[in-house]
């Protein structure tokens, strides 16, 4: 087994991505069974450590772990010693002392999964469930899996993908760019300059400030959530203006290329980055993304932890 952690897409690498997506097929099959459970991770303990609220992602990971027969623990920050001022390091070492095999961590600060992996004993896997603006690798994996299943091409190789919206603050965008381009897709970032990272040097992407210019030529139109607070930071003048320039309105949706699918990591702001009726079109695969989340996370847990079981 080559990888201990999944902190970033780059850490997994193209080979790892392909492997996880291959295993995901089996996990989809497991999830479809009458009793959707296999003993692959029996005796393994997976802790979810969420410093930032995300019921959806946490439940998706916990469901995945349970379907593989792992024991799960939830460390919920709201009801914990963290509120009493316990440091990140002390919290993690306390959890480790209980005997665990993996930590699924979400934190509003970029880099926390790296810090955790410095403090934990070797052999405990750190799985990044979203760190600050940085990465959200399992989201990218489920996105890639969804594209490969929902787009008629059946692969990302050569597909034209636009990621639209607040790239600057988006961990989904950073992971998606890395994952999609490793799998051969051509990615265009579409956003006003204020919502792009200050530097895109080294990013294998094209940039556009004009959604209308790229629409007709797309295989995947990926919309990011637009947050209200961006206005107070003077990044956009108003939500109305944002929607008029970068929202996927019904009129724009009509102009999407033949076979183009529409994606969103959720939760959606209907009426802002995506028109309510567009989210419900047949080529919008947003619920499929959520559905694939569990299987992809099963594959990730299996990929990182099952080797150890075999060795034990």
């Amino acid at each position, binding site marked *: 087994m080559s990888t201990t952690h999944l902190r970033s897409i780059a850490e997994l690498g193209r080979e790892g991505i392909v492997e996880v997506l291959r295993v995901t097929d089996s996990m989809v099959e497991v999830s479809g069974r009458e009793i959707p459970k296999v003993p692959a991770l029996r005796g393994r303990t997976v802790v979810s450590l969420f410093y930032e609220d995300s019921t959806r992602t946490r439940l998706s990971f916990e469901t995945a772990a349970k379907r593989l027969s792992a024991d799960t623990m939830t460390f919920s920050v709201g009801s914990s010693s963290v509120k009493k001022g316990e440091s990140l390091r002390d919290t993690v070492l306390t959890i480790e002392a209980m005997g665990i095999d993996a930590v699924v961590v979400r934190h509003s600060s*970029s*880099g926390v999964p*790296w*810090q955790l992996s410095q403090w934990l004993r070797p052999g405990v896997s750190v799985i990044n469930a979203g760190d*600050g603006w*940085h990465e959200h690798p399992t989201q990218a994996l489920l996105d890639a899996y969804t594209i490969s299943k929902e787009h008629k091409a059946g692969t990302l190789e050569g597909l034209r993908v636009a990621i639209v919206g607040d790239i600057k603050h988006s961990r989904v965008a950073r992971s998606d760019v890395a994952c999609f381009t490793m799998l051969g897709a051509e990615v265009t970032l579409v956003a006003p300059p204020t919502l792009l990272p200050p530097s895109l040097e080294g*990013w294998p992407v094209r940039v556009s400030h004009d959604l209308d210019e790229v629409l007709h030529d797309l295989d995947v139109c990926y919309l990011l959530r637009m947050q209200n607070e961006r206005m107070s930071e003077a990044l956009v003048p108003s939500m109305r203006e944002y929607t008029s320039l970068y929202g996927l309105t019904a009129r724009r949706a009509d102009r999407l290329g033949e076979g183009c699918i529409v994606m969103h990591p959720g939760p959606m702001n209907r009426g802002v980055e995506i028109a309510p009726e567009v989210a419900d079109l047949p080529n919008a695969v947003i619920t499929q993304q959520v559905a694939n989340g569990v299987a992809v996370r099963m594959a990730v847990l299996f990929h990182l932890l099952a080797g150890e079981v075999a060795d034990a």
Partner: protein
Amino acid sequence: MLEELLLRGGIVVDRDGTRAADVLVRDGAVAAIEPDMSAPNARILECDGCWIGPGFVDLHSHLRQPGQEEAETIETGSRAGALGGYTTLLAMPNTTPAIDSAAVVREVQALGASALCAIEVAGAITVGRQGDRLAPMAEMAALGVRLFTDDGSGIQDNRLMRRALEYAGPLGVTLAQHCEDEALAAGGSMHEGEVSSRLGIPGQPAEAEELMVMRDIALARLTGSPVHFQHLSTAGSVAMVRAAKAAGLPITCEATTHHFTLTDACCEGYDPHFKVNPPLRPADDVAAVKKGLQDGTIDAVATDHAPHTPDTKELPFDQAPPGMLGLETAMALTLGELDLVGDPVKLFALLSWNPAAILGLPRRDRLGVGMRADLCVVDPTVGWIVDPRKLASRSRNTPYAGRRLTGRVRHTVLRGEPVVVDAAATR
């Protein structure tokens, strides 16, 4: 009564160059500088192969007293300083409470009286370092404060900074600036650029520093009062200072060791030990700072020694406090990174007599009989590895853990007292 000291067998360094000579110290002062002296009653400090020069002066030490004694005290900080070859430290005023009144100045001076370095005190320019109204600079100057700064933040208000410079003029003191436009830097935990974009860490652009450098050069021109720029870190800042000096404006500046030895790429592992303000910059800026030090645009090397307790450096990167230790590593880094093994005069200029001049201390660029025996003996060849556990500072937040350095301070003499002998503090 202090014992006599004989610093034997070294190479004396001052602005006139180098010469093989022994240095005899008596009653806290230099008594003789001659080759092959014999002093039967003196304690001998062997200096073979070493440079003997005036003690170093740090323009930028955070000694954390009063208020944050868990991170550093004047005693522990001055011990770190002495081990680094420093005989004078300028204590920054961002303490709790801030050094913004005669009473706090007196307290710090009293704490410094028994320290292992001479402790000079920097006063705050504004009350509580809040940037709203002027602190009583004249009262503090009367106690010997020669440099004022709100370090930790820059003075944002243009008019207030103008008034501060005008008011300070007749006091014969220097105002020093931490250059950072807070609106532009807001939320930034590292340098804004390629690395921060990739890491998803909020950045602060070089321009946040440069705008204030630009403004203060303009205000120095307007008021005629001297301005000292603290910890300059960008190519743009260095270029502006070079031009301002060429135009004859009363500008001086310092650079820290970390700004010419580390780049923003160090932040890639999200280790808060590399978080500092101003932030570590890309290689082009590092090269410009080095060039500025070499060509004299940057007058002095400073440490910005900023102790923080270990638990605070275990916070997430964006929540951890900025700052790193520097006193015990500055000399070796300056020697190595600026390639000064063949130019000890430059080394001592940057670490000793240039900062002393900025601080208005008695000249120390010529070693002569009668001057106060604040001396530092450098062995330029010995190698050592930085081990955070072995540092004298109360904190452990060095960014150089495990780094192999060449050159070490062998002895430090403060007012005739050997406070460091063979790289160990004597008290």
